[in-house]
């Protein structure tokens, strides 16, 4: 997999906390620039600049209302970004599952010493030697 420019644009857009907050707001429904600017201590032009970045990344679209020009969330690029991270996570999880197994092995008494203890018990009580049991 090669990271394409669309995914790059998504990550660039998501890197900013204000833009993430805007997306969070839009996940509840469409909103105009004025409405989006309200919760932020920011001028409308500043908010518009963020909206342009989000729009270029395909994360939002302008709904067909010529007056309000409300912004609307487009979830597809977010899903692509999520899938990208999930693939990366799979690689780490593969490593860590092996580490789980290794740590479990290191915390158990090693096999040779267990065998030695069994051998010791067997010689102390001959009745329980494997050969006798087999009979």
């Amino acid at each position, binding site marked *: 997999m090669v990271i394409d420019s669309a995914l790059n644009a998504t990550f660039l857009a998501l890197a900013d906390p204000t833009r993430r907050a805007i997306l969070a707001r839009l996940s509840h429904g469409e909103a105009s620039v004025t409405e989006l600017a309200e919760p932020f201590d920011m001028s409308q032009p500043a908010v518009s600049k963020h909206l342009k970045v989000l729009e270029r990344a395909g994360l939002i679209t302008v709904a067909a209302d010529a007056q309000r020009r409300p912004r609307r969330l487009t979830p597809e690029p977010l899903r692509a970004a999520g899938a990208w991270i999930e693939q990366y996570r799979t690689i780490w999880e593969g490593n860590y599952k*092996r580490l789980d197994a290794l740590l479990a092995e290191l915390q158990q008494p090693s096999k040779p010493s267990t065998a030695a203890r069994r051998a010791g018990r067997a010689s102390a009580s001959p009745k329980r030697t494997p050969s006798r049991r087999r009979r």
Partner: protein
Amino acid sequence: MITTHQAEVTLPSDREVKVSRSFNAPVALVYRAHTEPALVKRWMLGPPGWTMPVCEMDVRVGGKYRWRWRADEGGAEFGFHGEFTGVEPNERLVHTERFDPGTVGGEHSGGEALITTVFSAADGVTTVTTMMDFGSQESRDRAVATGMTTGMEQSFQQLDTLLAEID
């Protein structure tokens, strides 16, 4: 009952990746598994079908390390190398990391990443948090994409076989 843990990946900033995972083992053991080459070689293998023929680690401040992986099929190789800049046993490891494209090619970002691994213990569970700072978004995205490229070429079905062998 044994709790199973899952790795969590987040992007705390446009140049970083954070990976967090808990283990049912004491912190001293988890630290050993991260710092003793003989142990590191057994789990830090990346995608199925790769081995780690080179794992040299001089774990002390200023000490160097060199890791190299090799694909069983085709024999492709790549690696990482760098220097330890912070070593606090059972607590924290900091090292620089440079990608060595080996035979898999790929662009060399030229950048050096800074990797901070924090070990924290609570109730017999050790959490390992790895923060990777790639210096720029471009380097980060490239590093993550490179990690996945090698992964995607392999069939993940092999993972189960491999885990069964180790168990």
